[in-house]
């Protein structure tokens, strides 16, 4: 093809403090192409696309769209130039309608009224043309995640985007939905759109893209035509070194440590968890697989003592655990790894030692008649840093300064140090790079070997497969019957994640 690229980034560099997020990155996108931008978490993919779209301003380098330089830092200029972006965290207002969300920014702010009728017509037309049906008058908050993504894509199409950037578009979709999305994207390229999608999942890059650009540590390390490469090569290029994730060894499970029987959690009129049952036995990992937003957050809260069962029973170590507070759980030797380490797991403004002891600060070893035994706390924290290889930390380091992986090691450490009987690990490796993922997996497996009962809640199929002895799928707040890891092939799990398990026997 001799036509000039529709999009050209050259020499993009962006620093955040000492961190170089993008280091002299250049890449181009051709007309009608489906380009994958592959990289680990933290490789700089999202930063790059945010620069392209004008959310961030690059420290140096420029972006050209259809031959013209885009003024930096102006999303409006990017939109004008025909670039549309579908963010990983949707940029939608939940309390407003689909049409409102699509129309915002498309009309002059000085107008006396809004031309909603022609807008609705255009939206419906676009939705039909690309197979992205959605009710224009529906409230965003009433839509499923998949539907919200459709709205995001429609927003860009409505603005006549000719280049579409999708940031981790399948993160919130089931395999089936994801396949359908890529089908839609392919029809889009046929109508002349050019697309970039950001991903760290090798299989979808292999399946959907025509060309791959691989980012590592903020740099472009390679570029391949998809037809000329394979998963193994991409994996090595992406990670840069051989990191082997540990795998579970067979081991006989012991007695049931934690169980839920017919538990429901409701909030107002909404049912967040619907009649779920599971049991976790000593020395085994029970994996709960599911697409984001299907009740994992509530299940995590329930088992961490932050939500109460409206119905049903929880037992821990033979006693009822219904109505257990976080404090009760910590006292009865439960370890809890929260879903979001930044908002729940640790307090960035506090020192590492304070975060290390926060759950246990009332225990006599840290508490001398109401006063904090600072020496004991610091010693304990130093011990965690040593044992769990928390890099770049001393007890007095500000926790905010730790990398995601090291912060997660601190959270793991404070939970595992006291050999818990039961561990909840909710999305324990979300957002981590391969090295850190392997470290977390190693620790969890070691805890399993030591006899802990582990409830692993994850959206990452590879993770669940590698670690779990038994697997249950979570869909719309309901849990499937457990399947032994040996019987769980990817087709069966795919069906379970789509909610198709009814009528099957418990394994």
């Amino acid at each position, binding site marked *: 093809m001799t036509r000039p690229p529709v999009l050209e980034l050259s020499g993009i560099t962006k620093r955040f403090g000492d961190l170089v997020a993008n280091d002299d990155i250049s890449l181009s996108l051709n007309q009608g192409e489906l380009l994958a931008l592959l990289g680990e978490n933290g490789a700089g993919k999202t930063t790059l696309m945010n620069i392209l779209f004008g959310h961030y301003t690059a420290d140096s380098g420029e972006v050209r769209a259809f031959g013209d330089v885009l003024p930096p830092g102006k999303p409006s200029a990017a939109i004008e130039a025909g670039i549309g972006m579908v963010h990983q965290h949707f940029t939608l207002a939940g309390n407003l309608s689909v049409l409102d969300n699509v129309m915002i920014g498309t009309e002059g702010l000085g107008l006396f009224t809004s031309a909603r009728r022609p807008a609705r017509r255009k939206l419906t037309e676009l939705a039909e043309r690309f197979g992205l049906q959605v009710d224009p008058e529906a409230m965003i908050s009433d839509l499923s995640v998949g539907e919200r993504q459709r709205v995001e894509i429609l927003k860009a199409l409505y603005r006549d985007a000719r280049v579409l950037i999708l940031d981790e578009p399948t993160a919130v979709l089931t395999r089936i939905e994801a396949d359908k999305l890529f089908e839609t994207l392919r029809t889009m390229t046929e109508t002349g759109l050019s697309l970039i999608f950001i991903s760290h999942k090798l299989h979808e890059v292999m399946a959907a893209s025509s060309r791959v650009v691989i980012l590592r540590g903020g740099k472009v390390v390679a570029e391949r035509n998809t037809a000329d490469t394979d998963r193994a090569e991409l994996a090595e290029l992406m990670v840069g070194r051989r990191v082997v994730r540990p795998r579970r060894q067979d081991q006989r499970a012991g007695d049931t440590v934690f169980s839920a029987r017919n538990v429901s959690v409701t909030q107002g009129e909404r049912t967040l968890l619907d009649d779920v049952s599971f049991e976790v036995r000593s020395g085994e990992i029970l994996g709960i697989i599911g697409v984001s937003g299907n009740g994992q957050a509530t299940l995590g809260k329930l088992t961490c003592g932050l939500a109460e069962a409206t119905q049903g029973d929880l037992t821990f170590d033979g006693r009822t655990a219904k109505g257990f507070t976080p404090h009760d759980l910590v006292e009865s030797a439960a370890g809890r790894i929260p879903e979001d380490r930044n908002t729940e797991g640790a307090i960035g*403004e*506090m020192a590492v030692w*304070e975060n290390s002891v926060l759950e246990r600060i*009332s225990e006599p070893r840290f508490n001398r008649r109401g006063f904090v035994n*600072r020496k004991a706390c610091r010693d304990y924290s130093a011990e965690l840093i040593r044992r769990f290889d928390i890099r770049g930390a001393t007890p007095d380091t500000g926790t905010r300064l730790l990398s995601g992986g090291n912060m997660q090691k601190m959270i793991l450490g404070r939970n595992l140090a006291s050999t818990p009987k039961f561990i909840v690990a909710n999305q324990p490796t979300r957002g981590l790079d391969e090295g850190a993922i392997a470290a977390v997996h190693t620790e969890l497996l070691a805890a399993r070997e030591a006899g802990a009962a582990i409830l692993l809640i994850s959206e990452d199929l590879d993770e669940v497969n590698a670690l779990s002895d038994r697997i249950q799928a979570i869909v719309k707040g309901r849990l499937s019957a457990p399947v032994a890891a040996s019987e769980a092939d990817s087709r069966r799990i795919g069906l379970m994640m789509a909610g198709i398990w009814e009528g099957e026997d418990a394994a």
Partner: protein
Amino acid sequence: MRLERRTQTPLALALTAPLVAVAIALALSGVLIAIAGANPLQAYYEMLKGAFGSRLSISETLTRTTPLVLTGLAAAVAFRSRLWNIGGEGQFYVGALCAAWLGHSIAAVLPPVLAIPVMMIAGMIAGALLLLGPVILRIRFGVDEVVTTLLLNFIVLLFVSMMIEGPLKDPLAFGWPQSVAVSNDVMLPKLLSRSRLHIGLLIAIAAAIIIYVVQSRTVFGVKSRAAGLNAAAASFAGISLGSTLLVVACISGALAGLAGAIEVTGLKGYVTLDLSPGYGYSGIVVAMLAGLNPLGVVATALFVAIVFVGADSMSRAMGVPSFIADVIVSISLLTMLVCLLFTTYRVRR
């Protein structure tokens, strides 16, 4: 141009921030003084003279510092746990009213050694109870405590007015609306003879030290700080937000109530509707200027007291309205907010 979080705050920056803030505030207020037709430098000199020029003025400044330390601590303690107690003024008045009533009625029954602590504690309890209402409303119904504490200030003032014109009216006050008086033998002892300075100042400084120790050394201090910094993480770690907030509210309200009790038993002897020239509100400024640090509160309370006492005498000497004190203090609050921001953020292109 945008703001970027600093990874670390240089100590020098943290220490100079309040000084820079005050300097900018004085410069801006200087413009107003010039507009009023006076030389700003001379005016500030007059203010310093008014605040420190004589034994009397020093004692007046310190007397004025006393309630500001306590209302400043009340705000600092609450704000640190993200409890927006703007009701210091109301809590001050209920504390004062309680102390006046007891000071009038129990003096005959109890010896001063007992009566004085009883009055102080009663004032503290009254202040704490007044703040508990809004805090319970916040915990139970999600009602923003800013508005409720503000509205309560007006209700309390009306209540005080009702009391000092009604049941607690001083029959000997020639019809003036003023409360019954604390009997002389249970007034707080003087710190300095032939002055109005009383031991309330020592009580206030002791309170600041105690609060500092509680915040930095105790388990409760760590818990309440965690709750203020990140409520989700704190409750995940098993810290009960509700009860932490209730305790913080009790401490905060008690400090403001104590301020009122001390002002009555140490200085005025009775309650009128102009007992406080806005100590509750100034306390917020004192706390913010100190970066919510309890020991810093003592210093910033002194600063605010200097401004107010100094402005009065400057006003007499130079004809600049004494409201300039309020202007200086309020601009300081705003400039301090900006300076504090730049200790945690820096500007990037």
